[in-house]
């Protein structure tokens, strides 16, 4: 078999294994899904505020559409690899993975994608149902769908490698959980998960444009709702790509430096 055929075979075997594992944890996935329901709470709140007329250009149905897609985006980009790395490095569970001739990164990537394969069908149901119930209209076009897909993929890359970088810090400190909390809190506010970013003051918005946060939630949501111009979409993709590359490089660097300090505890 060629090395490309083997690479494909490895991806398939890892996926089959991860998928089998995830289906063992159905209940857990459902719980995680519910724990990500903050956007639905925010939706109820904003719909209430818009009962007497639009707020900042958003009518009640617009808020419903916005937050239902926020819910979808956050579910599609949910990442937990920081906790996995924290545990593996502290308790020495990384050792068996380091003995295999494949970077442990791939196992984590495939685990995440397999979980998405189980989770996303469950997520689509409330999203589509909610849209119908709220009378929200989503103008599906090729551009909006393609832009949405690319921005969601980019947001996933940033989220995944940001957590991988934070998780790699466990080689030096046992405070990675705290660091992740800080990132989480800041990103919930600045990514558009609590309120659409166009309700923020213009100065704040222009300052945020250079950070990764708006591209994690707000940009993909606006793309699907057809509210981004071609230029805005291209800019969002370019900034995302730059941040994605930075986090990939940073995570890989921290990982390779950290391995030198690995203590292989236990056994």
């Amino acid at each position, binding site marked *: *078999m060629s090395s490309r055929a083997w690479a494909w075979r490895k991806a398939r075997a*890892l996926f089959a294994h991860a998928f089998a594992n995830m289906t063992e944890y159905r209940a857990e996935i459902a719980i995680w899904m519910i724990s990500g329901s903050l956007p639905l709470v925010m939706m109820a709140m904003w719909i209430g505020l818009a009962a007497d007329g639009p707020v900042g250009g958003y009518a009640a149905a617009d808020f419903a559409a916005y937050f239902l897609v926020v819910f979808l985006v956050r579910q599609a980009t949910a990442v937990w690899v920081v906790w996995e790395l924290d545990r593996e490095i502290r308790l020495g569970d990384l*050792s068996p993975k380091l003995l295999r001739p*494949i970077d442990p990164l791939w196992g984590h990537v495939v685990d995440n994608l397999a979980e998405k394969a189980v989770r996303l069908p469950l997520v689509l149901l409330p999203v589509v149902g909610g849209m119908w119930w709220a009378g929200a209209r989503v103008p599906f076009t090729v551009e909006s769908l393609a832009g949405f897909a690319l921005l969601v993929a980019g947001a996933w890359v940033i989220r995944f490698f940001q957590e991988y970088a934070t998780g790699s810090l466990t080689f030096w400190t046992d405070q990675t959980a705290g660091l992740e909390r800080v990132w989480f809190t800041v990103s919930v506010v600045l990514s558009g998960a609590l309120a659409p970013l166009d309700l923020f003051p213009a100065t704040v918005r222009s300052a945020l444009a250079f950070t990764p946060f708006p591209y994690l939630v707000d940009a993909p949501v606006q793309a699907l709702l057809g509210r981004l111009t071609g230029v805005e979409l291209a800019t969002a993709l370019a900034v995302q790509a730059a941040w994605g590359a930075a986090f990939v490089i940073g995570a890989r660097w921290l990982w390779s430096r950290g391995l030198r300090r*690995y203590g292989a505890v236990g056994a």
Partner: protein
Amino acid sequence: MIDVDGLRKVYRVHEKEAGLRGSIRAFVGRRYRDVVAVDGVGFRVEAGEVVGFLGPNGAGKTTTLKVLSGLLHPTAGRVAVAGFEPRRRQADFLRRITLVMGQKQQLAWDLAAADSFLVNQAIYEIPDDVYRTRLGELTEMLSLDGLLGKQVRKLSLGERMKCELAAALLHRPEVLFLDEPTIGLDVTMQQQVRRFVADYNVRHGATVVLTSHYMADVAALARRILVIDHGRLVFDGDLRALVEQRAPERRLRLTLADRVERSDLASLGRVHRVEGLEVELGVPRAEVARVAAAALARLPVVDVAIEDVPIEEIVAELFARGRANAAPVGEDAGRA
């Protein structure tokens, strides 16, 4: 196959006194100290050799194995395994070795072992026909029939260890590092694992380095042993040579019909133990036959047995001597 020279591994650990006051102190200013786990160890292992590491807890056995398998970066010294530098963890190196840890597992807990085997097949790039042959061989050698389809968490400890061994050997490594492979297993299962490792070594000419608390493991498998204590190598050589060199005596065990005077026993050899009518004497190797004959002639002997000094005792004595001779490595620990 394995070449180690001047290997040293120092861990930095943070120190905290017990209790609330200690926690507050550790929060404000952390104190670290260096612990020397391995201190200038050097040895060579030829291809196909089976070598046993002996040593008390914390002696540095496991640390050495982890350095040899590439999990830990050495602080100093040179290490080569199968022509590779382990810490670089190149794929070609990892395909040639395996490390089985009695207390860490690679099999997914909630799935069947067979599921994890398929992942290893792909990762180690084992063609289907070769995989089937090897799996058949391992199933036969380890009696895995009926185990591979069960959820791993439903297997007994021994069954799980056998599946772990199979998973670790599907890629047919040339070098096996076994860290306490029989820990927690019952005697029958320990014997099965030992027999398997010996078979594997003979069948495939693999090099085996193992650590164990059970002297029986080491005695059954390894002709050559490395005794490590406080991070230093205190003996490297043939197990039998160790026994003869350190234990010039053999044990004469007598069961008597009546009590006898202690002085009568002392005239035959060194009295080791007297418990009721059971007596144990230490006798120089060369004189065992003569003393046994004398005992039978002079004493009311019901039964007699001649035994070697248990290896455990020899090694325990070796550790005690090593400790008295060598400066304790722990003294290095003060430096922060």
